[in-house]
């Protein structure tokens, strides 16, 4: 047995339950609202906006899932299996949009393409027409497009991890069975990459359902905007929590279905094969592929960065305060770094525990542990805050009774509280990549290693670590940039004076000053390149 000689082993076995309990606290706070009546707001919603909200949310989720699947899988497949001009550059450059928050892509898109933007203004001047035929960007298609550009890296990254190690081989297998390349992709490669792709799409779905920033810029009504409205405009946290509970239930059902579906499949693909020979694309084919990749990169990253830089240069003179920006930057980086380490460590322990003890309770604990990502940020923030303040109140009572100390707040307003809140939100982001990597370590690998006398830590170091490494780096990079982009939890739980770049962006965009938000946004994007660069160095051997 792997760890049977160690007593501490009982502890890590409990990790899924500890994390699940942490996540459950805020979720329970939210879901408990279902028991209390929320007055006549439901009646009002049913009579007015709810049907629209449901239809809007459904189309948005469907559109973004299809869009990111198409873009993410397509890019990953060509990068992994084919050789064409610029392939090495695109392999990492296509990760860059990870650093671009969706809400930033959103206001840049409107800034450029809306009626008052330079594109339409110039065209109106040239053509001397009112451009009534110009497609309206502030609509469903516009939101779907922006979110697809912002979220495809989740799918691309995970799919690339899958295809790199097996894409070419699965094609060879397919050809030996007499299938052509297209059939090989759909019948062999795609099914083999399922856990990764499903993980990526799950993240996209949760992110889409929880998004507020992007839909607010577009004034597109979704479940999340309804939650915010019930809470912030009608002062009914009750109704807001009930709406959020529905969201949690929907996502939970999707998670369970997805896993049921996957449970019937076995994966055993362990070796990262030696770099297979890529299939070289001929001149015009290579050109088409390179061109498509460039367009995605241009729309999702280069164009927004150019527009942001232009705005930033404009506001630079009166907003730039070097010392403060260094503070923002340092806060953003250190918070994200700490969160990435903490969350990945927890997930690794959790995934190991789930692997050794695949009982139903553990499985459910793992499912619960990832649900925090689907909750709109503000709802989760207050969900985290309530138990935290309760705990703080108990602690300060104790301090008063036992030590006669008047402590005020103990946990709140500290980094500890903030990191716990991040942990609750971002478990999913780290879980999918690491869990997919873990699925590659088949029982037969362990058995083979043990028969050679490899046990415990040696086994982990020598056998597991190389297989898990790409997944762990992917997870760490994703969490890092996600924490850096996060707004509501950061706003609510940050200690005094701990303003980050995201806080700065919030302050400017909340006043509609997009050009003023550009400087912190550019800084955020550049800082987000650090983990992406590290990830690339680690996984692109």
């Amino acid at each position, binding site marked *: 047995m792997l760890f049977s000689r160690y007593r501490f082993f009982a502890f890590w076995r409990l990790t899924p339950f500890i994390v699940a309990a942490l996540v459950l606290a805020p979720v329970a706070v939210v879901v408990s609202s279902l028991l209390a009546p929320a007055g006549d707001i439901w009646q*009002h919603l049913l009579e*007015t906006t709810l049907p629209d909200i449901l239809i809007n949310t459904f189309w948005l989720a469907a559109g973004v899932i299809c869009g990111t699947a198409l873009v993410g899988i397509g890019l990953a497949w060509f990068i992994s299996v084919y050789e064409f001009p610029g392939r090495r550059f695109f392999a990492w450059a296509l990760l860059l949009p990870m650093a671009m928050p969706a809400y930033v892509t959103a206001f840049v898109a*409107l800034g450029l393409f*809306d*009626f*008052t933007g330079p594109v339409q203004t110039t065209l109106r001047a040239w053509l001397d027409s009112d451009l009534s035929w110009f497609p*309206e960007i*502030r*609509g469903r298609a516009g939101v779907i497009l922006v979110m697809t550009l912002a979220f495809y890296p989740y799918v691309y990254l995970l799919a690339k991890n899958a295809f790199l190690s097996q894409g070419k081989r699965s094609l060879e297998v397919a050809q030996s069975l007499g299938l052509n390349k297209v059939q090989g992709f759909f019948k062999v490669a795609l099914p083999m990459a399922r856990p990764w792709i499903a993980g990526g799409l799950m993240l996209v779905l949760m992110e889409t359902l929880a998004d507020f920033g992007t839909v*607010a810029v*577009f*004034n597109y*009504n979704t479940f999340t*905007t309804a939650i*915010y*409205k019930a*809470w*912030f*405009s*009608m*002062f009914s*946290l009750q109704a807001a929590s009930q709406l959020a509970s529905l969201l949690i239930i929907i996502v939970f059902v999707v998670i369970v279905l997805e896993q049921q579906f996957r449970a019937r499949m076995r994966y055993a693909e362990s070796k990262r094969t030696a770099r297979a020979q890529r299939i070289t694309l001929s001149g015009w084919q290579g050109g088409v592929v390179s061109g498509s990749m460039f367009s995605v990169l241009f729309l999702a990253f280069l164009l927004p960065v150019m527009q942001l830089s232009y705005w930033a240069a404009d506001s630079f003179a009166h907003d730039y305060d070097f010392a403060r920006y260094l503070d923002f930057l340092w806060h953003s980086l250190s918070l994200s770094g700490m969160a990435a380490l903490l969350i990945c460590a927890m997930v690794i322990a959790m995934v190991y525990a789930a692997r050794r003890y695949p009982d139903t309770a553990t499985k459910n604990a793992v499912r619960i542990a990832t649900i925090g990502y689907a909750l709109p940020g*503000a709802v989760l*923030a*207050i969900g985290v*805050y*309530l138990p935290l*303040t309760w705990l*703080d*109140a108990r*602690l*300060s009572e*104790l*301090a008063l009774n*036992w030590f006669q*100390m*008047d*402590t*005020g*707040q*103990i*946990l*709140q*307003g*500290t980094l*500890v509280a903030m990191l716990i809140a991040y942990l609750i939100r971002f478990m999913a982001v780290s879980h999918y990549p690491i869990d997919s990597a873990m699925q590659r370590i088949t029982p037969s690998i362990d058995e083979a290693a043990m028969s050679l006398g490899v046990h415990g830590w040696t086994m982990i170091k020598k056998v597991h670590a190389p297989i898990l490494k790409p997944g762990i780096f992917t997870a760490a990079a994703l969490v890092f940039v996600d924490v850096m982009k996060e707004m*509501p939890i950061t*706003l*609510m739980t940050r200690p*005094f*004076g701990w*303003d980050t770049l995201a*806080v700065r962006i919030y*302050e*400017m965009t*909340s*006043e*509609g*000053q*997009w050009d003023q938000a550009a400087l912190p946004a550019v800084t955020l994007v550049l800082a987000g390149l650090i983990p992406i660069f590290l990830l690339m160095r680690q996984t692109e051997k």
Partner: protein
Amino acid sequence: MLSQIKSHFSIAFFFLLSIVAVCPVHAEEVVVYSARIEQLIKPMFDAFTKETGIKVKYTTDNEGALLARLEAEGKNTPADMLITADAGNLWAASQAGLLKPVKSGVLESNIPAHLRDPANEWFGLSIRARTLIYNTKKVKPEELSTYEDLADPKWRKRLCLRTSKKVYNQSLVAMMIAEHGEAKTEEIVKGWVANLATDPLSDDTRALEFVAAGKCDVTIVNTYYFGRLMSKDPKLPLAVFWPNQNDGGVHVNISGAGVTRHGRHEAAAIKLLEFLSSDKAQNLFADVNMEYPVNPKITADPFVAAWGEFKQNPMNLAKAGELQTAAVKLMDRAGYR
């Protein structure tokens, strides 16, 4: 067994105390939760610290989150003062029992009655007028008259509005309900929606840009957004129109503050509040955002004053909070997104 648990717990607890810096309660600081952004509060806080030696610690967030946070923290809150950028949320904070009445002659003489809570739990510190801005190339000022008139079919496809999700519009509609009743207000809002040239926009700046670009002819915004845009680009074909000068007056809102019920530095918080309403700070508070001072003795910044004098609606702003939920529901029914 029990004693063991207790000792374990003690150790854990001491550990907790040791990692968290336990601040003794200072007499000489005041802690502020602000929904008004940092840029618009820091200069006044710096001036206050310079004058009194009292340090101001502050954190910013959106008003809904701050209210939820105050409520969750209850008796343990570190906050001594809540600042918001509208009256509705101050009213909500007061309803939730988060604020405490302040008896202060200074505040009563500096702040007109309709811009503070009748029960003295919150106080306006600057006035934000929500007025009409029109495109000077397409509209003659004599065509304009009132907010209500924008529902008239003659404005078909000529109106731009910010989304109904923003509290400024919710307050405006709430005050209209107070004045006209629900049925008539709903007619008016439906008329607005019918006259929209484009779907409601995410913020006031966007609405102004749309008017300037000629997508629509008129919009309803807070004056400081107009001020910001014009100071960047003075050539824009935009001008202010003060509506309802013969009935009701211009709808105003406030940036304001209240002292929290459970704060630890009540005296310092009241001192800060009085300072913010005083001659010294009033100009700073209003001018930093091109708003109007609440203190009638103080004149607005010349750039702002140049937009002309106007009669403001004298109804007490508590109504904006009281009727906010009704206003939101009404706008939903009217299809105003």
